[in-house]
């Protein structure tokens, strides 16, 4: 399936020459670390005592009853820092430490990956710089304060569309300028090899736990596993344990924003075209001249014009079904989940819930949905822009 950093035709290393050496060092250190019992033991302890794993597989009783299905939430919202991002951030931070690098840099959209990296840096006594689009800083002011509190420097990126893609470009530029003194903690399953694989593996704990929990809690595998997709880290994390189980349907839910018929969405697989961006060959939202399009999503974390190379491959071989939901459907799913289950989901995760709410399933159908983060970070934005819909 995968060779030399490729998933089918997707992936690879399309980076400035300056990063050739650093990428090689990251890959070498990563391969060694994954075979080192001490490294894996430290990671294991982090999972248990720092992140609070394993996270529950929660039966959403009220929604299940209403929809006539069995809906389970994999509660990544209960991870330390409030989202799945910490699984990967702590892994990469430990890797950097092992390589003798003590300055972490990261891009962030919603702020969750920035917080996770700043948290890992604080725990391991490292320096941290987070690049965040200016529009996202406005959307997620609360998270910016948290990052600063954790000791991180937050760089506001006022370039392009001032969102996640621009923060990623700026982080890459910084890495090109400081190739040996800092470690780029990429937050999603994107970027040049070995990042997509590395992020997948650090996030695969979600799928490993979920699969085991399914067997323990209801004695069989689910009919379907659903996750939201921006770059695709939470989705690949949970899918990874089920890919070989062909009886399990896998569904990724992208951000259709204001509608696929408009220019205001981030549904990359649904309506993108193959290209090369941020170090990897993948589906991309681009114009006919190969310029990267500005994207839109109500959730800053899904507001990205590309998607992880493994997702592109899984789409092509039809192992995963990629769908999309609009901002409007997301707000409704958010409100419903809060009221029905007493859980405030992140707007990103609410995309997956929105897909369930609009779909039809046979009675008794079992779904495991990755609730990738909690929605506290989104409350200011929702109360500012959608007060009547959520109160």
């Amino acid at each position: 399936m995968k060779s030399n950093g490729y998933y089918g035709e997707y992936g690879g290393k399309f980076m400035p020459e300056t990063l050739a050496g650093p990428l090689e060092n990251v890959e070498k250190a990563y391969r060694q670390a994954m075979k080192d019992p001490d490294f894996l033991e430290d990671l294991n302890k982090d999972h248990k005592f720092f992140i609070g794993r394993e996270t529950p597989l929660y039966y959403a009783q009220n929604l299940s009853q209403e929809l006539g299905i069995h809906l389970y939430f994999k509660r990544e919202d209960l991870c330390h820092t409030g989202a799945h991002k910490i699984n990967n951030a702590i892994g990469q931070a430990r890797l950097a430490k092992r390589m003798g690098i003590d300055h972490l840099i990261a891009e962030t959209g919603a702020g969750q990956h920035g917080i996770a990296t700043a948290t890992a840096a604080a725990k391991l006594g490292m320096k941290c710089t987070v690049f965040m689009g200016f529009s996202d800083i406005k959307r997620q002011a609360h998270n910016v304060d948290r990052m600063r509190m954790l000791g991180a420097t937050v760089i506001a990126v006022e370039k392009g569309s001032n969102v996640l893609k621009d923060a990623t470009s700026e982080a890459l530029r910084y890495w090109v300028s400081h190739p040996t003194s800092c470690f780029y903690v990429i937050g999603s399953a994107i970027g040049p090899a070995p990042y997509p694989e590395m992020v997948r593996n650090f996030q695969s704990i979600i799928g490993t736990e979920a699969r085991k929990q399914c067997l323990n809690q209801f004695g069989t595998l689910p009919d379907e596993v659903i996750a939201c997709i921006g770059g695709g880290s939470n989705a690949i994390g949970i899918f990874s344990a089920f890919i070989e189980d062909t009886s399990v349907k896998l569904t990724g839910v992208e951000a259709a924003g204001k509608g696929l018929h408009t220019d205001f969405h981030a549904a990359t697989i649904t309506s993108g075209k193959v290209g090369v961006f941020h170090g990897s060959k993948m589906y991309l939202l681009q114009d006919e001249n190969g310029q990267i399009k500005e994207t839109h999503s109500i959730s800053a974390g899904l507001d990205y014009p590309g998607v992880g190379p493994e997702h592109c491959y899984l789409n092509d071989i039809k192992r995963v079904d990629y769908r999309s939901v609009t901002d409007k459907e997301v707000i409704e799913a958010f409100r419903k989940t809060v009221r029905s289950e007493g859980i405030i989901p992140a707007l990103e995760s609410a995309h997956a819930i929105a897909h369930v709410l609009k779909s039809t399933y046979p009675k008794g159908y079992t779904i495991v949905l990755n609730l990738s983060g909690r929605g506290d970070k989104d409350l200011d934005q929702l109360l500012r822009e959608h007060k009547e819909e959520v109160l």
Partner: protein
Amino acid sequence: MKTIVMPYALYGYPTKMESLSLIRRFIHSGATRIEIGFPFSDPVADGETLQKANQLALKNHPTIQELLVDISSIKRDHPQVKLTLMTYLNPILAGGIDKTVGSLSTHFSSIVIPDLPLEAYESYLSIFKEHSLPVVPLITPDTSESRIKEYCEQADDFIYLVTVNGITGTTTGTKKDLQPVLKKIRTHYQGPIIAGFGIKSKKDIANLSGTVDGIIIASEILRLQANGDFKEIEALVSPLRK
């Protein structure tokens, strides 16, 4: 060793017409090689100056087809001047790589693609070779000896020596001693070596003069262009001929 200055113009910046007249100005100042940038929305190897220029140029909706039409009269008038295109991979892929590279090869002597490193050669280099459009390798002072050897084997028009660890127009990039890398390149390659990234003053030019075959000046020229300092540009492009 005679060192030339290879100036840079960004197609569409500030307008298509003005970028073309800047290219003609370079030629009148004595430039024998010119680097022409084709704008990209997310130029990750470029600093502030080029990023802003790219954003402005994109507002004029440039296309590669238009660039070729616009460049053709310059090439017709000055067939001896070597033009090198600099852009990122995605604009080359968008219109179908085979077709795009084929049409580019009619006017350009070579192409610089910062996000097409050695690892990606396997997928794409044969297409460029087929159309006789050499891909210019970018080699940095930290590029390993084995990579340098491989790049040199594939190099044709010239080798682009990145003088700093950093982005274009950098003021903070780590300056490196270039002698070790030059020695490694010379072991495997006898063609022109042209240095670029972060070269902006006459002092920088003087420091490099005689050690490399050419010097690319991009960000500084865009800055002077924005200020209308064309005399200054002329002085930068032609000093080494005096």
